[in-house]
């Protein structure tokens, strides 16, 4: 199977410039055509009133069944707070070696932590999160290299420590994946 495109589908409001710059960073790490689309979902169906968050598992599932296609990698981009039943929150998640993933910008903003807003930092974090989840769809697991984008991050501060690119080892692994060259 030869991969054709990486499709970024935004749900909710995103600045056009932010999506273009995220797409540029994806293009640099994963050499495929990048398509940016807008998606429409009734997010209230995925809202958990007890937790006041959106169910990441259900959203990932709907991206897989309604938007993803076999020859593409599809990323659903959200601006709402995501959770999975076992964890208090997630930045994003993906099917390992699957065809899609999701990422949310919600918890990446400084404002959520009572700090002054920083648009550049927000963009930087979102680029890392999208590239990280895409890495999983290509079969990459968490990396121990502290600056690799595939390093696991459980806080925004962790995200700030790494770069938005793959380390040489992960890039080499990516090159070995059929269809990913």
């Amino acid at each position, binding site marked *: 199977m030869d991969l054709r495109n990486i499709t970024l589908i935004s749900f909710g409001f995103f600045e056009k410039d932010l999506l273009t710059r995220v797409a540029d960073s994806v293009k640099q790490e994963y050499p495929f055509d990048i398509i940016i689309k807008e998606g429409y979902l009734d997010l209230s169906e995925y809202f958990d009133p007890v937790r006041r968050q959106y169910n990441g598992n259900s959203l990932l599932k709907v991206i897989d069944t309604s938007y993803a296609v076999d020859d593409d990698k599809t990323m659903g981009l959200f601006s709402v707070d995501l959770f999975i*039943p*076992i*964890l*208090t929150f997630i930045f994003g998640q993906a099917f*390992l070696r699957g065809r899609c993933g999701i990422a949310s910008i919600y918890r990446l903003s400084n404002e959520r932590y009572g700090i002054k807003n920083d648009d550049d930092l927000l963009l930087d974090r979102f680029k890392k999160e999208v590239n990280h989840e895409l890495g*999983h769809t290509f079969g990459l*697991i968490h990396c121990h290299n502290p600056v690799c984008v595939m390093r*696991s991050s*459980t*806080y925004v501060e962790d995200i700030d420590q790494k770069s938005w690119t793959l380390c040489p080892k992960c890039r080499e692994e990516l090159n070995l994946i059929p269809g990913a060259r």
Partner: protein
Amino acid sequence: MTKKISILIVDDEDSVRDSLLNWFIEDGYRVECAENAKKALLILESDTFDIILADIKMPGMDGLEMLRRIKVLKPDSIVIVMTAFATVDTAVQALKDGAFDYVTKPFDPDDLSHLIRNASKQITLAEENENLRNKVVSLENVEDLIGTSDAMKKVFQDIESVAQSSSSVVITGESGTGKELVARAIHSNSPRKFFPLVSVHCGALTESLLESELFGHEKGAFTGAMYNRKGRFEMADNGTIFLDEIATISLKMQIDLLRVLETKSFVRVGGNKEITSDFRVICATNKDLKSLVEKGEFREDLYYRLNVVNISIPPLRGRKEDIPLLVDYFIRKYCTSMNKQPVFIEPAALKRLEEFNFPGNVRELENMIERAIVVGNGKKITVRDLPLEKSVMTTSIESLDDLEKNHIYQILVKYGWNISRAAKALKVDRVTLYNKISKYGLKSPES
């Protein structure tokens, strides 16, 4: 991470299992899931996991009961319990029952990462500890092999030359000569030294017990087999298995053993799953295996499979020049272990030891020295501290022929079976010595 950590997730909620599975797989762990305690216990009977992450509140058997059963089945398992209904009582109970930690659902992603990282660290430390212990034990046991006689030099050379290979070795020698020490020395100088040396005393077990001991058994294989058990071959994976008193095993076991040695795979008693293990075999016996083969008591094919290299340990009476060294070594060893000042042995006592026949070989000498240090005055070992008189009286030598045979053998060993030098020392001609060797059926260790 040196090895891939494995995790078993036990939770009745699909979404929890899926989420955790996905999370851990992305972290590079080997993960399996079970939807209830019963299924988890079933999985644990045939597979091993480093970490078990279990929900407390589940239909049927709850997580606390499952934790107790896991701790009986595999006491070293790391079990982390989780629940959405946290109370101090259940947390305390879980920890009392041996849980590694306790978490409340939903948890922070960072808490989960920390928890698994801490558990992994504990597993790595436990493994390193075990490896170091094996290493220390092995090195200690190499030190117990003492001697500068030609016969012992030959043994050391043999150990050195076989250690690096994975060939089977048969160690022969009388009881008490140190066959197990030689096996340990081979193992601890081999590339397998950081893996276990597993010893089996074949003579001490009945045929059915030996079978279960060597190959392991499945739960229910026989009355009383309540849980699955790993066999010694499985435990010796990457290491060495030492089969002591190999000549005592039955002909049926010999067939089974031959098959295992040829295929390096076996099936547990009562099981049907083929298990493979990469082990090296070292056997020991005080019998002449070749003559047992001739009598039909030991399979010839097994003999050749085992006897790739033969190391023969001389009896202590054949290397009396090593006695002072051994005495000195055992004095230091026991004075240190008993927290006593080093004692010395008076020349008359040492001379008596050198004259003694030692039917129990080095083990007998070691016991004598240990006893002398315990009962002696704490300054020196005298003849009175040594239980020699009684032993001399009960020596097996009664006839002059036995005495002559024994003396000729000692001289032959002393001169490395050089007939001319031995004949000169005995003040007989070479033909006479050849006749005596033939009459008494004496054989050099290399023959």
